[in-house]
């Protein structure tokens, strides 16, 4: 017993946090005063903003702001509860319907934080023992979702369909050794529409072919491509002209083009309804403040009424790319 007391006395833990050098860039952050729109005031200086994801310029749109003001007068700011316990407002239901109609899917589900959307959607379907094929350059939220799901992860080289096919073939030979297990192991491919880390688009038509050949489901993360690609802004499926039902789950966040906060997943009811009980960021967290939902609805209205803003955005992107490439 004396020995045990001595051990307890002697043990010294590490300090809770290691010291951080004082000149770390994140500690001397830039403070933005005023709205982070196209002309942004950083540290007191007026600059042109090439850093925010304000793709459609809806951040300081008058109509969006007045919709948010009306909702503020009616509902206050917070929802004071998760969706299951009186936190479901009629604006949430309306936004879900509008998103499902816009993306031409059966159902949509809304999360209150963009990061939590894909990070809760993946572990709801893929559990320990399932296999997920994911691109190497996938964003951090996807990586966290995969880590939380505890599934087997197989990385394939960025946008390299041959590498993915090789992995799928290897998996097929594995399956033949153990057909009983193969019958219950679910398989998924997780890709992004527009990759945050590299800026490329994924080759979706080839992925669809691989999907039906090897019987894997596709989860598409469209945070950057929603409202950017496609003739009407419906994302990469419209860009390539693919039937939306071929994709099992589309997840996007509303923090980029829709200039709001939060995220949504859309797809067939068979798939989306499951998240209402098993999506952790949905069941155990307060719902989206109604003023943000109203702002998102108004932004959707603007997107539907003015389909030419996507053309304007595309022209500007092409121009910048051409000028920078010389």
């Amino acid at each position, binding site marked *: 017993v004396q020995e*045990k007391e001595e*051990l307890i006395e002697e043990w010294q833990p590490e300090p*809770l*946090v290691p010291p*951080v050098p004082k000149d770390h860039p*994140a500690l001397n*952050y*830039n*403070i*933005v*005063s*005023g*709205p*982070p*729109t196209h002309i*942004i005031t*950083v540290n007191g200086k007026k600059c042109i903003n090439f850093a*925010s*994801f*304000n793709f459609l310029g809806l*951040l300081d749109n008058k109509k969006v*702001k007045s919709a*948010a*003001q009306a909702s*503020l007068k009616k509902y*206050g*700011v*917070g*929802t*004071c*509860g998760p*969706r299951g316990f*009186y936190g*479901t407002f009629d604006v949430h239901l309306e936004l879900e319907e509008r998103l499902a109609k816009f993306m031409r899917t059966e159902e949509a589900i809304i999360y209150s934080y963009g*990061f939590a959307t894909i*990070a809760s959607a993946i572990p709801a379907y893929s559990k320990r023992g399932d296999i997920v094929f994911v691109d190497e350059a996938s*964003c951090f*939220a996807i990586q966290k979702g995969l880590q939380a799901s505890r599934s087997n992860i197989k990385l394939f080289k960025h946008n390299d369909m041959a590498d993915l096919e090789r992995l799928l073939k290897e998996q097929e030979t594995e399956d033949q050794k153990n057909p009983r297990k193969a*019958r219950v192991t*679910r398989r998924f491919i997780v890709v992004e529409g527009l990759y945050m880390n590299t800026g490329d688009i994924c080759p979706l038509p080839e992925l669809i072919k691989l999907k*039906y050949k090897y*019987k894997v*489901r596709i989860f598409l993360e469209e945070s950057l491509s929603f409202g950017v690609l496609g003739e009407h802004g419906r994302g990469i499926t419209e860009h390539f002209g693919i039937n939306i039902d071929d994709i099992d789950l589309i997840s996007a966040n509303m*923090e*980029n083009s829709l*200039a*709001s*906060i939060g995220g949504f997943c859309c797809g*067939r009811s068979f*798939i989306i309804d*499951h998240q209402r009980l098993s999506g*952790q*960021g949905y069941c*155990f*967290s*307060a719902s989206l*403040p109604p*003023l*943000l939902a109203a*702002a998102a609805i108004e932004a959707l209205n603007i997107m539907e009424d003015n389909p030419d803003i996507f053309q304007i955005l595309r022209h500007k992107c092409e121009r910048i790319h051409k000028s920078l490439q010389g």
Partner: protein
Amino acid sequence: MANPSAVCNGHLHHHHQKQNNLLKSGIYKKNGITKGMKKNGISNGTLYKKTFIEHFEQAPMYVAVLTFLGFGVGTVFGYLRDFMRAWGLEKRNVATEREQQKDFVPLYQDFENFYTRNLYMRIRDNWNRPICSVPGPQFDLMERVTDDYNWTFRFTGRTIKNVINMGSYNYLGFAETDVNALKTVTIELEKYGTGICSTRQEMGTLDKHVELEQLVAKFLGVEDAMVFGMGFATNSMNIPALVGKGCLILSDELNHTSLVLGARLSGATIRIFKHNNMQSLENLLRDAIIYGQPRSRRAWRKILILVEGIYSMEGSIVHLPEIVSLKKKYKAYLYLDEAHSIGAVGATGRGVVEYFGMSPDDVDVLMGTFTKSFGAAGGYIAGKKDLVDFLRTHSHSAVYATSMCPPVAEQIIRAMKCLMGLDGTTQGLQRVRQLGKNTRYFRRRLHEMGFIIYGNDDSPVVPLLLYMPGKIGAFARRMLEKNIGVVVVGFPATPITESRARFCVSAAHTREMLDTVLNALDELGDFLHLKYSRYSKSSHPELYEETRLED
């Protein structure tokens, strides 16, 4: 039967624990109604500066038997229905897989959804009820009917007006639409717009965030604070930044999902101690330090204790003085999640740290959310400057997730200023006092009526035990008929035999509203036979009131 208000060492103790814990679950269950006095080595009588009364009464045995019987019947009928559905004798109401994908591996195993399909679906109309007004002390519900036994819902277009709200987390009543109160929020919304479109380390730090963080630090009495856009994400993204492989996390049995997710994502070893059981925690601490890591026997790099201020399903308050003394003795770190307790307990609303009269320096990491008491959204972490600086650089949320939106930040600022009295009125303090009065009145009356209530006498979260699965649906529906909205929870959020209704008292509730609810509960309790408590009404009701005149 021992006198319920027996006094020992000058402290009223209704709750105690046996020295040798023969019990399986962490919740104290005693066979019968015997009581004893605390006998363990830690003289907690001197650590607590005020009386600490908790109740976790166990129901009589026949209740447990009937509960299991109820679930058994439900399961049998579930199997019957599945059989009938598989053979086409009954219509399938669930959505099904696409024709083209029928030969893919099935997405859901049949048995995983057994509970959802057969038991949850029958009483599904008690959850996800949509409202169409501000979630204040009263709200308007949208009327929903179902034609096919809860498989689909249809809105009739009518609203049920002025339903008393006992379900939303509106502890201080800041969920309001008063034009004067929201004046600054309106101005900020006009100025900044709704979104940010950027992360904290890029262009996402607004001057509003800096103002908010300084205010939070001042409110809590610590050196620095950092705010995040979502409370759930605060836990799941910052615990991995603080601990990693080779560290040990000691987490309470009944911790919230966000804490569990954060602990799992961090990669540290997790050990669970029984709910609020200091003996169990001390045993774990001693074993950890003496025996080290499981296979290599090396010493642990750090030990982090994860607890919550108020547990939302139990209504119990953490035994903070004992935990702090344990932490100091064994050199561990303490992470306190005050999601429900910030603003709701304490003389001026500063949370459990103030409630126990301790200094905020005792807790290493103070975490909380703004969703409950402040009527907004988001979370914060506060503590020493080194800690917050480290989080600014290394937290996943700072690098990858968007920051809080400006109108929401303004709402928190104005609510906090009101609480601290910086806006020139005493309204904040009045709200905290009103919440305390409402809580104590509500709990006292429920005890007198004979219901089994869990938790501490000062916590505004009041779980009322229902036990049997049939009563869950009946209770919620009948309360709605009386124009009162309640929240009921069953398995899997609670243990299978302890389904409950959970009330959240708010400072905005008036005495009349509480009386309406209490009368309705009285009637319903007699009708549904919910009054399981075997303690007789205390014959000295004024004894409770007098000891609570001071904070």
